[in-house]
């Protein structure tokens, strides 16, 4: 069987899974799986860029995805004029001061002579800067959060179309990735893993606690959508007439239609990014990346700047994760920092890339769809399995209750098992790198 035939078969299988869900369950849940599958595929492309092309181990995907989500709020929500008037400028000024402190410390590091003077100088600048920053910042935050705390209490966004947030999410994630890459790349490979693990936790902590930014755990709901609202479609006589003509229920048709619009938008992004990374892989740049991955010493001897290339690819891959995060928040229509779990947003994407085939973009996309389907399905399957196992036990028996209750945790076990089995027996994945 040729590669093309095999790959066609794989994707036909995915299509079958989704269509099967549509036939046996409902088309709404089939399209739900499809939409999240598309987003997962974009994330997997980003991680594949880092791991498959360059061998960089990023355990902080969740953080970059969350930054993308933050971008949708900052771009698309209408600005809160009152909050801006109350303390918005003061908050911004504080952030500028904070940034200036860090820049000042870096400049001082370069300017002062090495030794005790430099250490003391930097510490003085940082501490003084921190207190000035807090003095300006705290007042501003209090003022902003006091404005209509039940419904707003934050600065709002720019009120721009939500689609602009997608590239902006990428830029935000790229910025965070640059800071991490600058410190942790060029050292041992494990350090990048630990540093990304940390930045992800901190990004989530900031999003949960900084209410002035995006309302924290109070969530931002009702984000503007790129697709029409179902209720508007149902009230649109043209739409109702058309779908009734096809013999469909207008309510059902409107939900399907909205999901299809999202699917179309996501497909455009996925195909665009796929073409870009595929071109990159087969360009001299892509060959250089793989050469660096396979033998850093040899690549360095050939005059390649390994650390700089690593930084480049790390930033690019994280940017793609940021775009995917913005897409996901747009689809959800709300930003809920409490729902970002490392298992769901970091490790699941890893399983996707490794199962699909690290180093192969098509494999990453395949893994994205397949593992997402598995993720959605494991819970009902696990529950069903538990019901079969406990079928013989008496009603109310503690073990039976316990097993049924714990079925929800089957996901962790299954994903871990899938990861270990694939790594052990088929480390190159379903569609191996050429």
């Amino acid at each position, binding site marked *: 069987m040729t590669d093309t035939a095999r790959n066609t078969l794989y994707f036909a299988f995915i299509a079958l899974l989704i269509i099967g869900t549509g036939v046996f369950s409902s088309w709404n849940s089939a399209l739900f799986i499809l939409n999240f599958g598309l987003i997962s595929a974009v994330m997997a492309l980003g991680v594949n860029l880092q791991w498959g092309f360059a*061998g960089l*181990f990023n*355990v902080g995907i969740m953080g970059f995805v969350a930054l993308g989500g933050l971008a949708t709020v900052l771009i698309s929500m209408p600005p809160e004029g009152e909050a801006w008037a109350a303390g918005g400028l003061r908050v911004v000024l504080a952030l500028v001061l904070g940034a200036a402190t860090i820049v000042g410390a870096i400049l001082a590091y370069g300017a002062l002579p090495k030794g005790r003077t430099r250490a003391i100088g930097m510490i003085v600048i940082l501490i003084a800067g*921190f207190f000035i920053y*807090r003095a300006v910042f*705290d007042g501003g935050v209090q003022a902003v959060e006091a404005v209509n705390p039940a419904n707003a209490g934050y600065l709002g966004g720019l009120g721009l179309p939500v689609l602009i947030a997608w590239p902006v999410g990428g830029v935000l994630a790229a910025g965070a990735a640059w800071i991490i890459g600058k*410190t*942790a790349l060029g*050292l*041992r*490979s*494990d*350090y990048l*893993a*630990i*540093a990304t*693990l*940390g*930045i992800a*936790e*901190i990004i989530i*902590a*900031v999003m*949960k*606690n900084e209410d002035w930014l995006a309302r924290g755990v109070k969530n931002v709901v009702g984000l503007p959508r790129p697709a029409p609202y179902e209720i508007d479609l149902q009230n649109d006589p043209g739409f109702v007439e058309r779908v009734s003509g096809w013999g469909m229920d207008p309510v059902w048709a409107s939900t399907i239609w909205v999901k299809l619009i999202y699917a179309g938008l996501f497909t455009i992004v996925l195909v665009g990014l796929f073409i870009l990374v595929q071109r990159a892989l087969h360009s001299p740049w892509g060959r250089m990346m793989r050469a660096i991955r396979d033998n850093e010493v040899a690549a360095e001897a050939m005059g390649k700047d390994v650390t700089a290339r690593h930084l480049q690819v790390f930033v690019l891959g994280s940017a793609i994760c940021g775009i995917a995060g913005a897409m996901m928040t747009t689809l959800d229509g709300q930003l809920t920092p409490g729902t970002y779990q*490392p*298992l769901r947003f970091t*490790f699941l994407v*890893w399983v996707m890339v*490794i199962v699909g085939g690290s180093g192969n973009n098509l494999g990453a996309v395949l893994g994205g769809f397949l593992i997402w389907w598995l993720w959605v399905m494991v819970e009902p399957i696990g529950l069903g399995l538990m019901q079969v196992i406990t079928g013989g036990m008496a009603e109310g028996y503690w073990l039976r209750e316990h097993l049924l*209750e*714990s079925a929800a*945790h*089957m*996901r*962790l*076990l*299954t*994903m*871990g*098992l899938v*990861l*270990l089995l694939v*790594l*052990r027996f088929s480390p190159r994945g379903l569609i191996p790198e050429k």
Partner: protein
Amino acid sequence: MDFLNALVALSNFVLVPAIAYGSQLALGALGVTLIYGILRFSNFAHGDTMAFGTMATILITWGFQSVGISAGPLPTALLALPFGIAVCAALILFTDKTVYKFYRQQKAKPVIFVIVSLGVMFIMNGLVRFIIGPNDQRFSDGERFIISVREFKALTGLREGLAIKTTQGLTVITAVIVVALLFYFLNRTRTGKSMRAYSDNEDLALLSGINPERVVMVTWLIVAALATVAGVLYGLDKSFKPFVYFQLLLPIFAAAIVGGLGNPLGAIAGGFVIAFSEVTITYAWKKVAGYLLPEALEPSSLVQLLSTDYKFAVSFVILLIVLLFKPTGLFAGKSV
């Protein structure tokens, strides 16, 4: 008198909690650093190994409590601890046989080991949630305080009280005993010396007839013991929640790296550096400052540098600083 009051307040809210937390981190970091030194990878499953060992201990503790065995004023968990370690060690040795051994024979790259440990972390995390559930569990019993605030105030007549929880005292004593045993083992016994030799230079160690599989096995056993002890002490002191143990991974790694990966002494120092920074930076200094400063200068705000929600940010920033300026850590580990 004000000075004494300030000192007592400082001890109560900063020194005592930080010492207890630091001991727990140090034990955790010792496990990470040992794996790094002998098996040469960063074990992401360490937090969940701690959770698993603690869970085993908790279940056995409950068993003891239900049949009426107790340790008097001390927590029953102390009696259950050896059994918890045994269960944890059995699981870890099983993981090593089924998972890690294959990659060792393949001489896989360290990053592959890290990914594999990620898979192990998933499974352990799943097991723990499957068996005991994702919720908070309290399993501390026995005497709550060595000295409580009221007793201390009555004893000294100071306005500030000092409370030392039994679990805090226990943590420090246990940590000291465990660390002393570990260093005795590493420096004095034949097996310990062979472990250090293997860590320093694998090829030379093999040439001189050290059995690598045995070294690896002993390492896992020690790691199981360290992880379970650290986990149980943390759980006694605060409470047991699987997700919190996963989150402990970050300060533990930070402690191991700050001290220098692969260096046991560094891991202990790193644990205390991280714990003290975390507690001092997230503590509201208003009370202490109120005693020390003249009335005119008394602060109106809480004088808290960072809210406690950001305590992980502290270990992270320390980690970044160390990576930027001294990637080998304070005690020159074997990294980079």
